[in-house]
């Protein structure tokens, strides 16, 4: 990282004649700014912007893997609208992204309020509750895969031994139960993100504000309602929008738990695009499935951008 030697005053003085123009370039704000943006921008152009436009082109063709096809207009998109699996996939994606958010937000708020108290071992506890969010999701999903297993599920074992059920539950076996199980695992993963983000917001509330409100006779609920809530409203909204975007475009949790099964009933856009685009090699149709996500992602991205701009 220490490249400073290259630009030491001595070197610059010695070389002033020969590299005068380079030095000038590195000192003018406009040119230096652009030079510094270049390496990152180049990577983003080649591996993000270009594939995005290539994806739009692919979605307008009947390409299969290894064979660039013909331009067919919007046929991939219109065919998908009449595909019952795609319609189910769309419904699943919305359930998965929207239904889980209130649970994550409320439980995350609860977690933040608890962690905001002074207590012993607060650092190890914070590190511990972050684990679902930070460890590889594909690996923790394997834990859930076993927790939901029709034979080995510890939940089934517990309920059976308590005499509440007679048969093991097949958590990932039927469509509705499978979606609920998937949502539970997703909520589990998302709570710490909300929790830690809201905690950061809570810690920005000056303690004096609470004390002043308490002196004015405000009870616990009133302080929560009129001091805490306004202070964290912003971070909760930001966290919710990010969470919707990420969950909407998720892949790995469902790939590990059900691969979209049973009978294609638990796909979301990401896993269905993978199945059609790679497993079935219809990369044009797959690209179209991915692109169906775009309007919704763009909507939330712009909402977030407007909100952040207004706050700033």
């Amino acid at each position, binding site marked *: 990282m220490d490249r400073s030697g290259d630009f030491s005053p001595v070197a610059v003085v010695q070389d002033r004649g020969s590299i005068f123009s380079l030095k000038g370039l590195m000192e003018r704000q406009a040119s*230096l700014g652009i030079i510094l*943006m270049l390496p990152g921008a180049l990577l983003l152009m080649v591996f993000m912007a270009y*594939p995005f436009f290539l994806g739009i082109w692919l979605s307008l063709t009947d390409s299969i893997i290894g064979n660039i096809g013909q331009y067919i207009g919007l046929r991939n998109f219109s065919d998908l609208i009449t595909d019952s699996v795609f319609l189910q996939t769309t419904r699943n994606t919305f359930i998965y992204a929207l239904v889980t958010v209130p649970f994550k937000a409320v439980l995350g708020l609860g977690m933040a309020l608890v962690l905001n108290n002074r207590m012993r071992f607060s650092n190890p506890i*914070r590190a511990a509750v*972050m*684990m*679902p969010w930070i460890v590889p999701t594909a690996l923790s999903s*394997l834990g859930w895969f076993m927790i939901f297993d029709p034979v080995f599920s510890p939940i089934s074992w517990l309920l059976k031994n308590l005499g509440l059920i007679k048969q093991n539950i097949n958590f990932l076996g039927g469509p509705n139960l499978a979606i609920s199980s998937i949502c539970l695992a997703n909520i589990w993963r998302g709570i710490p993100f909300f929790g830690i983000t809201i905690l950061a917001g809570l810690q920005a509330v000056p303690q004096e504000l609470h004390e002043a409100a308490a002196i004015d006779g405000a009870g616990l609920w009133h302080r929560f309602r009129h001091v805490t809530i306004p202070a964290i409203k912003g971070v909760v909204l930001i966290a919710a929008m990010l969470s919707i975007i990420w969950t909407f475009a*998720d892949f790995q949790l469902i790939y590990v738990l059900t691969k979209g099964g049973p009978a294609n009933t638990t796909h979301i856009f990401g896993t269905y695009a993978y199945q059609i685009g790679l497993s079935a090699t219809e990369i044009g149709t797959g690209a179209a499935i*991915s692109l169906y996500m775009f309007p919704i992602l763009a909507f939330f991205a712009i909402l977030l951008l407007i909100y952040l701009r207004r706050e700033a």
Partner: protein
Amino acid sequence: MVGGDTLGRRTLSIYLPLAFFLLFLLFPFYWMSIVSLKPTNDLFDLKFNPFWVQHFTLENYLYLFQNTEFPEWVKNTIIISVVSTALSLTCSVFIGYALARLRFPGSNFLGVGIFLAYLVPPTLLFLPLAQVISSLGLYNTYWALILTYPTQLIPFASWLLMGYFRTIPKEIEESAMADGCTRLETLFRIILPLSVPGLLSAGIFCFTLCWNEFLYALIFMSSGPMKTIPVGTVSDLIKADTLFWGSLMASAVLGSFPIAILYSFFVKYYVSGLTAGAVKG
């Protein structure tokens, strides 16, 4: 809390909910760990309590190292994560500095562009990106991931660092430049040493995302010995018979361990980085 804290009230309002969160959030890890430490036959024996280890064994871990490509996956994951993190951090320091300190044409537009790039998910791009990777001849090479991961890392790391750089008083730089330092010298000698916490949280963020990434690794590294830990575990250790649980969970535990340790040490930086970069930025 303003006075009047009895132990009873603390238990009800803090310790009980805390116990619930710890139990719910940590149970899957507990479960994975105990399954990985049991002999396979114990799993099938219904008279044993499944929440405890009756006969402790490390055979699942030994199996992982002796009979699978797990050691290769570890090597691949480390190389890819380290190189990709270094590349992303370098790019992000430059971008963060340029956006925080320099006025240049299009800087506002580029700032918004970088922010939007943060919101572009891999599932939107993976199919066309697979074509790009294959036409560049990068399939099953480290470069496939080393070059594509930064697109997921640079946006957030740049924003985080930009937020951090802006908290450093401009006067320090101005006096250094009055003493003859060039702009790049002030970046390397003054700003970066003052930004160590920001660099640490950006670095941890990048490393974690590389280590955890699944979709690109699944598609671009399909040959056995080139896989990363998450992909190798999910695609190679689940077998048709039912005797795989022990080694599967052992691999999941080992693959999660480095990240868990990293966060236990740096949780403070992570939270402060989040406050400085993500929330305020």
